């Protein structure tokens, strides 16, 4: 994990996103323990209250949960939950941004469709 204070994104959001990504990619599998607030704080040299704030986002989304006396664990079904969340964000994050940039560059809808098709062809090569 790695945080940067030169981006627009607050540190606690960066921490939440990175933990989420580690859960999504299976680095922290479901029903296993994730690093503690203090461990993450020391590792990233970030204030523990900031780390807690990031973890609270994931707790609120029920991606992680607290086992009393043990620490924070990944919820079962967390990966599916993250996948659904990201799918619902896909349009805004990628498609809308793509169209906006394409318009600036005076590219037509057909140009974009061709590029997308090319992208899928390359992947299957």
């Amino acid at each position, binding site marked *: 994990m790695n*945080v940067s*204070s*030169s*981006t*627009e994104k*607050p*540190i*606690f959001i960066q921490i939440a996103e990175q933990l989420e990504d580690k859960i999504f990619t299976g680095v922290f599998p479901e029903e296993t323990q994730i690093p503690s607030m*203090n461990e993450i*704080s*020391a*590792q*990233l*040299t*970030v*204030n*523990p*209250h*900031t780390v*807690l704030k990031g973890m609270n986002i994931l707790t609120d989304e029920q991606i992680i949960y607290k086992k009393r006396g043990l620490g924070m664990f990944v919820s079962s079904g967390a990966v599916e939950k993250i996948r659904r969340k990201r799918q619902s964000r896909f349009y805004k994050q990628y498609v809308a941004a793509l169209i906006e940039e394409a318009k600036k560059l005076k590219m037509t809808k057909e140009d974009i469709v061709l590029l997308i098709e090319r992208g899928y062809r390359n992947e299957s090569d």
Partner: protein
Amino acid sequence: MKAIEVKGVTKRYKDVLALDSVSFSFEFGKIYGLLGRNGAGKSTLINIIANRVFADKGEVFIDEIPAGENMAVHDKIFCMSETDLYDRDLKAAEHFKWTNRFYKDFDLDKALILSKKYGLDINKRFRALSKGYQSIFKLIIALSLPVPYIIFDEPVLGLDANHRELFYSLLLNEFESGERTFIIATHLIEEVSNIVEDVVLIDNGKIILKDSVENLLEKGYSVSGAASEVESYCAGRNVIGCDELGGLKIAYIMDEKAAPPKESNLEISALNLQKLFVKMTEKGALK
């Protein structure tokens, strides 16, 4: 109230007004950054809080106890100074022993465990330790005292990157939320920007800002573009500074973030803490 409260503190050195009726407080259980330029009044403030210098006017209270000339606050506060007040010929282990005599609650076991963990050779004389390990040594003493308030005055001055990293991770490891308050006075703003929760900015003997880092980063931003566009965007906003590069103008703003008009080519970017403070204290330098 559990806090260090500074009330109307004024300090004058001959014709220099070092602190001008300063009032604010450090709440318990947070890591604070005490920031300011050289000569802003940081060290004077620290020395008054730590009861090393007398204020001309005003008072400091620690957990509601008046701090001036009061032995009761001895168990409340410790200040790790930039200057070394330790006998350079004594071994680290002997310093631990003496500290143990002077502070009844000094945790000697903890000091020894931390020394081992961070590779401090306690059989070396203070003078024989590298600059980095002299600081680590002072930090270990500070952290082994179970006092609620610890002030670090320029704690990482002269340390290499590895030792600074070691210092910060040791500090954070020891910061168990709600049990301690750390106040770090430093010039290395960017290094501590993720560590401190709140900042107190002092300039020309006055507190000009006290806020959480999160708020500051949310409110501070820069807008750049054609000079005329930037100027019309800035109207009515709290502009703390400007830079110009040919026809390009960059304005630094501390205000609620507002998106530029759709047709404009203005670019909004985040402002780091260091830039923010440089801009806020630049005017003071001109006076």
